[in-house]
């Protein structure tokens, strides 16, 4: 469970845009996974199997909101600045040169690519790397959590980073 929860959580967050809902979905996924564990034939990797359950959960979640949405009133939001000056329509046109939307999408993909690479690391290395880099814990806290000394931690993180660089180099782009 340790090795998959972050990956599943990230996947869910990028799709429902809400960490609370994502948390529930991940929990439900693990629960459903355990319940039908005997049906799991081992044909696919465990992670792929869990992801396919999670996908169903996400779809269910959207179905639920959609049925709620139908009952609510349609509200038209007016742009506050809209009626002050003449060229209000032109102001609302999306800027074609803006790369903002694109870069956000790319970031999500990048996040998933990094997660996939982290999943390939040995468990201890992966733990050390995520605790230090992504959760931003201090060295002492990570050492306490993993019960190792600082110089040991640096060697582990160093090895993890070397593998990650290699992996991202192959899967993402040339660093």
């Amino acid at each position, binding site marked *: *469970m*340790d090795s998959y*929860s*972050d990956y599943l*959580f*990230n996947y869910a*967050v990028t799709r429902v845009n809400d*960490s609370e809902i994502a*948390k529930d979905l*991940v*929990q439900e996924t*693990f*629960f459903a996974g*355990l*319940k039908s564990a005997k049906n799991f034939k081992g044909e696919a990797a465990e992670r792929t199997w869990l992801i396919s359950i999670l996908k169903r959960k996400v779809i269910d979640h959207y179905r639920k909101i959609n049925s709620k949405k139908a009952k609510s009133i349609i509200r038209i939001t007016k742009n506050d600045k809209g009626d002050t000056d003449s060229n209000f329509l032109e102001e609302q046109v999306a800027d074609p040169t803006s790369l903002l939307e694109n870069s956000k999408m790319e*970031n*999500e993909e*990048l*996040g998933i690519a*990094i*997660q996939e690479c982290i999943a390939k690391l040995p468990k201890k290395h992966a733990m050390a790397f*995520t605790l*230090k*880099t*992504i*959760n931003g814990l201090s*060295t002492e806290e990570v050492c306490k*959590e993993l019960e190792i000394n600082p110089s040991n931690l*640096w*060697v582990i*993180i*160093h090895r993890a*980073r*070397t593998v*990650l*660089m290699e992996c*991202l180099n192959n899967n*993402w782009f040339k*660093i």
Partner: protein
Amino acid sequence: MKTCKDVEILCTKAQYNEATLLEKIQLKLHMLICKTCKSFVKKNTKLTSLCSEAKIKTLPLEEKERMKKTLRSKS
């Protein structure tokens, strides 16, 4: 004189802003004379910026523990 292996670990340390002044100087000096380490430092810095760019979200540890408990109680 530090070996390349030591310098690489120093570099990793520097990525988290936890290298001491002396270690930083050692790193810079080594980068002047060693091309391999220079490119390593470049890659390592890129990795750091990629990780912060991606804004990966993780579940906090307590949350994971709580999930594990509920799973155990249900199964």
